C-alpha cells in the first residue's frame, strides 16, 4: 500500500489542507464508511424525510444504497480492479473503485481503445453540496480522485483516457472538469446515468 501527499480544501476558509491519497480501500476506510459516513447519511436522510422529500424526488441522494464493503469484496484479488481513497484528519473523505481492463472508449477517435473506468466514486456525506445538507466541510476531493484516475490511465498506457457513468447530481461537476458528456443509454443503468469520457488532450489539461 502506498500513500501520496495531496491537498483538499477547507470549505469555509477555502484554504488548502494536507491530505493523503492511498492506493487502496482498506479496512480502516470501510470502517469509516460503515460508522462515520452511514451515521451522517442517516441523519441527512431523516432530515429529508422530515422535509417531505421522497425517494423519487431529485433531491434524494443517489448513492445511499451503496455498500462499499460489498463493492470491495467483489473485486478482491482481481488484477483488473483497484481502489483509491482520500484521508484527511484521520478520516476517510472519499473513495473510488476503478476498472483497468474491461472497458473501452466510446468517443470517436478512441473507440475500442482501453480506458480506466471509474466503477464507483463517492465522497463522504459531510462533504456534499446537496439541498438541506449542512454546508460541506471539505471540497476538492472529487478533483483529487479524478486526477488519480487520469494519472493511473497514463501509467497503464491508456494515454489518460478515462470513462465513467455520472450520478445525475454530479453532471455539472464533470462538465466543469471538461469531460465529454455522451448522454444516457436506455439499455444502460436504466437510462439514468450519463456516460462521460475524456481524450488524452482533455486529460492533460485536467492534470
Amino acid at each position: 500500500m502506498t500513500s501520496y501527499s495531496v491537498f483538499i480544501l477547507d470549505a469555509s476558509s477555502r484554504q488548502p489542507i494536507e491530505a493523503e491519497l492511498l492506493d487502496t480501500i482498506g479496512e480502516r476506510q470501510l470502517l469509516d464508511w460503515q460508522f462515520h459516513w452511514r451515521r451522517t447519511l442517516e441523519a441527512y436522510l431523516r432530515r429529508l424525510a422530515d422535509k417531505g422529500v421522497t425517494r423519487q424526488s431529485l433531491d434524494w441522494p443517489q448513492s445511499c444504497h451503496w455498500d462499499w464493503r460489498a463493492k470491495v469484496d467483489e473485486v478482491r484479488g482481481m488484477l483488473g480492479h483497484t481502489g483509491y481513497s482520500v484521508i484527511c484528519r484521520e478520516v476517510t473523505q472519499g473513495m473510488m473503485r476503478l476498472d483497468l481492463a474491461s472497458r473501452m472508449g466510446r468517443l470517436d477517435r478512441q473507440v475500442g481503445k482501453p480506458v480506466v473506468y471509474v466503477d464507483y466514486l463517492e465522497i463522504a456525506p459531510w462533504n456534499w453540496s446537496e439541498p438541506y445538507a449542512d454546508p460541506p466541510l471539505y471540497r476538492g476531493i472529487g478533483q483529487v480522485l479524478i486526477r488519480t484516475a487520469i494519472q493511473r490511465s497514463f501509467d497503464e498506457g491508456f494515454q489518460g483516457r478515462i470513462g465513467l457513468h455520472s450520478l445525475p447530481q454530479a453532471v455539472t461537476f464533470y462538465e466543469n472538469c471538461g469531460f465529454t458528456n455522451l448522454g444516457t443509454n436506455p439499455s444502460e443503468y436504466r437510462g439514468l446515468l450519463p456516460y462521460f469520457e475524456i481524450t488524452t488532450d482533455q486529460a492533460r489539461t485536467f492534470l
Partner: protein
Amino acid sequence: MRIAMGKKTMTLNLTEVEMSALEALCAKKDLSKTGLMRQALRLYQMIDTRTERGGKLYFEDDQTKEKSEIMML
C-alpha cells in the same frame, strides 16, 4: 518474445500467426505487447472469478438481442 512483468520476466513462445494477431491487437488498442498481455490476463481472471461465482458470460446480438453463451470451464 520476452515480456517484463514488473520484477518478473517471462519468455513466450508464439507461432507466427499468434504473433501477428498480438501485434495487430497492439496497434489497434494502442498498447505495448506487455500492456496487451496484461489486459488479457486481467480480463481472463475477471471472467474466471465471476463465472466461478455463478455468473455467465454472453455475447448479445445488437439487433436480435439474442444471447449466446461463452463457455468458461
